[in-house]
């Protein structure tokens, strides 16, 4: 199972939503959470180092979640970071776009701690396989 000290970065322009995600992560035992209000700020925080997992909203001003994902995958330093996309849509084209850009997972709002846990577990399993 994943290290509970793992450092998450939650990206969303709506602070209520960041708080929701933060609380859900805490429920799952992950208390080490940083926040960013859009993709631009997220990239700055990533540069600061230490981030091990990115959970990002899709629709944001300045830089969307998809653009953030693309920027992460294009950067040698953190292209291996797991990125979980959160969105309000279960639209096929969105899911495809996210998968093509290299999202590690995709979760549709609203979700419960259980759903989040399930998605995270899947991502951790994949990472372990890769590492092995």
């Amino acid at each position, binding site marked *: 199972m994943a290290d509970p000290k793992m450092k998450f970065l939650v990206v969303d*322009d*709506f*602070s*209520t*939503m960041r*708080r*929701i995600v933060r609380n859900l992560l805490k429920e799952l035992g992950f208390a080490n959470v940083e926040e960013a209000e859009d993709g631009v700020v997220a990239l700055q925080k990533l540069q600061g180092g230490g981030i091990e997992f990115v959970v990002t*909203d899709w*629709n*944001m*001003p300045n830089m969307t979640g998809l653009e953030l994902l693309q920027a992460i995958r294009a950067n040698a330093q953190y292209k291996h970071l797991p990125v979980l996309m959160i969105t*309000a849509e279960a639209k096929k084209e969105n899911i495809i776009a996210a998968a093509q850009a290299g999202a590690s997972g995709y979760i549709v*709002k*609203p979700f419960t701690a259980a759903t989040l846990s399930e998605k995270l577990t899947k991502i951790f399993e994949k990472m372990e396989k890769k590492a092995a």
Partner: protein
Amino acid sequence: MSDFAGMEELLQDFLVEATDLLSSVDFKLVDLERAPGDRGLLNDIFRGFHTIKGGAGFLNAGELVNLCHLTENLFDKLRNMELHLDPPLMDVILSATAAVRHMFTHLERGMQPPAADPDIIARLQAALRGEALAKVEHTAPIAAVAVAAPAAASGEPDWNLLHRAVTGVVPQAAPATPPEAQRAANQPADPVTHSFGRRASDHPGFTGPTGRRDAERGRDTSIRVDTSRLDQVLNLSGEIGLTKNRLTALRADILNGRSDTETLHALDVAVSQLDLLVSDLQNAVMKTRMQPIGRLFQKYPRIARDLARSLGKDVELDLAGEDTEIDKTMIEDLSDPIIHLIRNAIDHGVEPSSERLALGKPEKSLVRLEARQEGDHIVIIVADDGRGMNPERLRAKALEKGVITDEEANTLDERASLNLVFLPGFSTAERVSDVSGRGVGMDVVRTNIQKLNGTIEIRSTVGKGTTFMISLPLTLAILPVLLVKLGEQPFAVPLSMVREILPIEPAGVQEIGGRATMVVRGEVLPVLPLPHLLGWPPSQQAEYGVLMQTAEHNFILAIDSFAGREDAVIKSLDDFRPKGVAGVTTLSNGQIVLILDMKELLSGLGDARGVPRSVLLGSMAKAA
């Protein structure tokens, strides 16, 4: 009772943030009407609904999700140029935002909002299918929704609350709006307004405690503060702690008999440092209560637009100074007066386009809403470029309504005539419209402003327009006062009411109609001795007069002497409040001083507003 057990905090966060978001959506919608193809605006509005939807999902507010989802889809099509924005579509969108706002009011009471008006949903769906929306006579129902719905959150009901606060009548399940407004709002068969009406009267929980909680605006007791400002407070309190330690050490030294120059110098330094730090801390704490007034302003363009449209006028609301910061409690209390002034400007101030063209004025009228800081005051201006107010007509109207007497009418100068609109029961509207002209209003506006220790002034030029200027203190916590004395007893009067201080000389005091008066630069003013107002025995040595300016009267307050000005930190007397006393404050020497409530003292006098010259001058007259 609550549908949100265990989620209250989340709900509060959501409401605060989503309400802000919706206001900015409303603001952008007004812009969008002027630039229908603006991709940036379309994107922002799309994202606004999208974000609200996302948050609502976590609250299980299905109906809100549904409504936002449809609206969001509409904006998705608009930004992808699949649909084109035309006036009927705009109306649908505006009624959808009003419905979202209405749902927030349910959430505020801890209840899941019911489904939106099926008509709105049907129209949204039709628009999504690309069907041309029939141009039904939307203007009427839309205006009603638009005016009534925001009013539900921030408009008319507060007049009632205010009235209750003044009269002390326990909140009843009374209609939330005055009867005329209620009827006017309900006239178009609009389910949104209807359901609101039902809620106000039928829901068992709405009477009593809930009503009172509404009055206290329970939701708004929390405040969002920039962390850097909180850090500053923390830092300063730390510094004060250090200085306190220094003083404690110095005290020990002094008690042990050390009184050399070095120790005294150190004491001096420590005390002046503490002085500086405490005033910095006061400022910093005050700043945590400050919010940009733009948060209040941004909801007005929408209200102005809806109103102008329903009246068939072409009006642009121009905002300026949104960054001006003002005490949060004042922002809330200013909301209604400003709405009222804007409504007045649009309803009565500006002329219809045809009339403007005939006068050679630009077709579009401009209403300006501006805030700025001037010294230790905040000035808010609501100005229109309409027909202006005619002092002559106002006087005639006031006479006709019996608000003033013939004699009074003759003594009124231009400024005083304009101020007649602030008298209770005065309304210049020839007819009663659903937006203004109910005769409640301007007097309540002024009462509200005065409650905030502010003043409101009118400047008007016939044919050019009218300007209302509201002037407010930066904060309510500190009140600049003038200390006046009767014998050795000091009293404090609000400095904002003091115009000037002059000596009282027996030769300058005349008796008119049995009352002592003085003429100050052509203005005849009654002289009221402070002991008379307080019910004290007449003073023997009224030497000074303080020219006081209240809303209704200017008069000279006769006092024995005065002791300068002070920034009083007001302590209110909650349980025990003598008539005419607004609160108390402590002077630097530890003495407790009563802060006088002039208005209450004056009203206590009834008609006995004045004393004979002999009473005023007492022994002085004999001596002279």
